[in-house]
Each structure stands twice: as structure tokens, then as C-alpha cells.
């Protein structure tokens, strides 16, 4: 039987688009629906049945004194990493952009150094950080000891551990933000600076506030959103260095979701943690798509 031209064309479309479409429905959309439903149950991996428990998982997560750490620590971690990483990324990008005018090769060498942590395997580098921060043998505390100071236990002190992890998070993400800012800076037309000069904004400080900063607006928003999603999903350093401890002092959403679900098999509770994580990411990602749309319109 010969197929008509039209139905052959439809078959071709299905052949081209079908596999990816089926895969995304099975691997993304159905799982999202299931995890949302599971977050209202007390299901445990391996159990034969489950009960609907309404909002109970969410209530525990937000009110129980120990369980609450996962949410609050994630927010504190993000509140440190987001501004610090953006600020440092911008400073370094401004410096390198300026440097590249006269010594481009030197500037690109430095850029590579700043970007290196982004490409390196974070788990492996976290193990290296463990050595740097070791209470007695670590480089940092040995340096402090040489100056007559007793260094703290950076990763096992309850009051300190989250900040230590935040510093590692900043170290890892600055290079990424720098690269995005460098791209933003390269896109600013140089005649804007000439015009600012004519208008009397001659000093570097004035030029920054009248031209650079406003022109970087879209880049800065974009960088903010990316840094935020990155900070919300912090997992590798926590899993490698602290496992959420001591006493939940460094527990964060994604790690808690892993532990509750895959170590303690509390699938229902873990699903609720997942949904809260998802909502946080969704909030900032939605913002990002809004920005992207705008950028397209202005072109």
C-alpha cells in the first residue's frame, strides 16, 4: 500500500519529534506530577501501601525545630553566596576588562585562573578543601598557627560550618559570574563612554555609574538568577564535607531530600522537600524568562 504524501509527511514528523517528546513526558512531566502527589502522602520506599496526610509533611518541614534547618540554612547560604559571588564577579570582570585593553594575553591568563574552579569537579575539589581546612594539618590553620593564632574547626563547628560552605560556594561560582559580566561589558558600545566624557562624567567612578552600571542591568539580573538557582541546589559540598552536620547545622534542602528519601526511605516527606526546592527555583527561573523576553523585544 502506498501512503499518501500527507500521511508520509506526518510519519516523518513523528519520527523526528516523537522520541524526544515521549522521553520528556515520561522522564520529566509525569515524574513532576507524581512527586507533587507523593508530597501529600506518608509513602515509604518499599512499603505496600500509603496514606494521604494532607499538608503534614510541609508543616513538619517548616515548624519542626530540627527539620526546619534544611529550609532556613538554604536561605542563609543563598543570602551569603548570591550577593558576594555577584559582587566579586563584577569587580573581577571590571578589572580584567580594563586590563585587557593594554595587555590582552595577561588578562586572559588571569581569566582562566578565575574560571578554573567552575570547570573542576566540585566533589574532588571539596576533598581538597577538606585538606586545606583540616583543624590541625590544614594549610589554613597551619598558617594561623604560624601567626600565633589557634584556628577553629572550620567544618565541625556548629556556628561556623555554614559560612565555611558558603565561602567554598563563592569560590566555585565567582568565575562563572565574571565570564557573564565580561560578555556584558564587551557589549557596551564605546561611544557611550565618549558621550559621557563630553557630558562631564570624566572620572572612572562617574563613568561606572552613568554608563557601565545601567548598561549592565540585564546582565546583572541574569547573573543574579543563575547564582540564586545555583545556591538553592547546593549539594556536592554538603554531601562531601558535612553530610548536613554537625547537628543539622549545615543541612540544606537538596541534601535533606537525598537523606530523607534515599537513606531513610521516607519518600513522602522527601517529596515535600523536593516541591519546596522546586518552588524556590521556579520563582527565580520565571523571573529569568521574563528578563530574556524583554531582551529579545529591545532588539
Amino acid at each position: 500500500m502506498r501512503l499518501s504524501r500527507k500521511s508520509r509527511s506526518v510519519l516523518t514528523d513523528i519520527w523526528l519529534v516523537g522520541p524526544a517528546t515521549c522521553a520528556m513526558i515520561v522522564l520529566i512531566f509525569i515524574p513532576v506530577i507524581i512527586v507533587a502527589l507523593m508530597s501529600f502522602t506518608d509513602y515509604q520506599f518499599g512499603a505496600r501501601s500509603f496514606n494521604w496526610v494532607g499538608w503534614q509533611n510541609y508543616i513538619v518541614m517548616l515548624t519542626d525545630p530540627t527539620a526546619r534547618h534544611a529550609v532556613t540554612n538554604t536561605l542563609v547560604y543563598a543570602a551569603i553566596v548570591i550577593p558576594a559571588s555577584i559582587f566579586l564577579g563584577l569587580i573581577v570582570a571590571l578589572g580584567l576588562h580594563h586590563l585587557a585593553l593594554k595587555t590582552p594575553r595577561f588578562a586572559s591568563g588571569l581569566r582562566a585562573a578565575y574560571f578554573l574552579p567552575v570547570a573542576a569537579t566540585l566533589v574532588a575539589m571539596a576533598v581538597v578543601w577538606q585538606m586545606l581546612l583540616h583543624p590541625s594539618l590544614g594549610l589554613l590553620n597551619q598558617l594561623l598557627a604560624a601567626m600565633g593564632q589557634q584556628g577553629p574547626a572550620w567544618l565541625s563547628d556548629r556556628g561556623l560550618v555554614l559560612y565555611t560552605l558558603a565561602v567554598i560556594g563563592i569560590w566555585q561560582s565567582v568565575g562563572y559570574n565574571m565570564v557573564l559580566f565580561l560578555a556584558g561589558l564587551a557589549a557596551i558600545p564605546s561611544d557611550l563612554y565618549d558621550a559621557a566624557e563630553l557630558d562631564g562624567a570624566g572620572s572612572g567612578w562617574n563613568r561606572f555609574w552613568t554608563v557601565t552600571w545601567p548598561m549592565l542591568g540585564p546582565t546583572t539580573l541574569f547573573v543574579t538568577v543563575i547564582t540564586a538557582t545555583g545556591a538553592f541546589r547546593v549539594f556536592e559540598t554538603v554531601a562531601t564535607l558535612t553530610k548536613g552536620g554537625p547537628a543539622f547545622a549545615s543541612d540544606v534542602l537538596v541534601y535533606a531530600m537525598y537523606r530523607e528519601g534515599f537513606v531513610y526511605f521516607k519518600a513522602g516527606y522527601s517529596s515535600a522537600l523536593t516541591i519546596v526546592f522546586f518552588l524556590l527555583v521556579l520563582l527565580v527561573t520565571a523571573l529569568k524568562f521574563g528578563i530574556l523576553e524583554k531582551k529579545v523585544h529591545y532588539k
Partner: protein
Amino acid sequence: MTGRIILVTALILGAFLMLVPFLWMLSLSFKDSAEIFSSTLDFFPARLSLDNYITAFTKVDLGRFLLNGVIVCAGILVFQFLFSVPCAYALTQRRFRGRQVIFGLVLAGLLVPFHVTAIPLFLALAKLNLLDTYTALIVPFVSSMFGIFLFRQAFAALSPDLFDAARLDGLSETAIVWRIALPLVLPAATAFGIFSVVAHWNDLFWNLIVTSDPNLATPPRGILYFRDRESGSDIGPLMAATVIVIAPMIVGFLMAQRRFIQGLAAGGLKG
């Protein structure tokens, strides 16, 4: 002039701080344990010996971890291309009903971080008896929304006339996808490839969930097995192992900086 000196000094100092972990890792990877545990601080090892590197390969199966990393990354990448390139081509160069709906789904899918789908995917793989297999490590990633998105942008910039000409020459749509469309968007393909390989080489989360067999450990998981087994007594070989694990990414980055930065920066579009 002084301003410039201050700027250069500050930038060099900052870059040095960024590099400290890498330098310390290299330094420790050449030291023997007597030197590591000594109370004096020396950056340069007393002698350059590869003993730690040899120990890293003989004491644990580092070669196996690296091979697993290659198998998983290659498997994922091949499927991602097979699924996303034809889909992106059809979304831009063909007219059919549901095109907008499918693209809408791709955009919605971009918003979903992988972690969100982990629990149901784990359940399904457990039901299918696929835990502790390469399949479990590869299957969840075969269809990349980000890949479709990137390829769609690249294909949209190509002129439809090109493809009409190929059709007149009697080429099938499948042949057009792989022999004409893909070679025309190699920069996008490279950027996506780098993004995908870096992401999956470095991933710990999914390996931790679906495998318990050390023979299936990818490099980051392997490092953790090594560290936990030695419980901190064998720092030199452990650092040698970390050097080897990050080396492919670092060497790749230093050799193709522009492509690497493009690929990873584009990854920011992903949820």
C-alpha cells in the same frame, strides 16, 4: 599609573587565592606521608615522586572510575544528540500541527531541575530492576530540553532554502538532519557537548542514588569511596586521585577556553 599597579596586584592576588586549592592539591599529591604529617609548612615537595599516583591506581580501581565516567558521559551524550537534534530540526524547519505545543513543553521542561524528578525515576528504575546498572545512570538524561533549546536556536538561524534544495536532490529528512543540518551548527553542538560532558562527569547526586556497587562509581563517587576507605590516613594518594579526576576537565578547558566558556555559560539558561 599607581592605579594600574594596584589593579594588577589585586587581580593577581585574587587569582592566586582562587588557585590555592589547586596548588595545594598538586603539592600534596607529590609528598609522602612523613612530609604531609610533618609540622613544617613547605609548598614544594622534598622530591618529585610519582609514588602517590601509582598507589592511586593500584590501591583503588581509579581506572575503573574513569572508565565509568567515560561510558556514562558518552552514553548520555550520544542519546541526547539522537533525541534532540531531529526534534529541534523539525521544530524549526518543518510545519506541523502541535509544533508550538511541543516547543512550549520544551520550555516548561527547562524549568524543571533534575533533582525534582529523582524520586519517581528512582521508583521506576527500582520496579524495573535496573538499579545498579549503567542503564540507570544514563536513561534519565537521554532527552535534554536544554539540548533541544540550543539546537532549535541554531537551526532557526539557517535558511529554509538550503533544506528545500536538499529535498529536491532527493535526500530524506533523516539524511538532511544528520548530513546537512548538524554540520552547519557545529559551534552550538560543541558548546552543548562540553556542557553535557562537564555536567555529567562532575555529577554526584544521581550516582549516589541509583548505585551502591563501587564498580559503577563515576569519578566523583570514586573519590568519595577512596576517601572514606582510607579514613584520612592516605592523603597523598587521595590528592593524586583528585588530580587525575579533574585533569580531563581542566586540560579540556585550557585547550579550548572559548568553547568551554561558551558551553558552560549557555548552561545558565537551564533551570
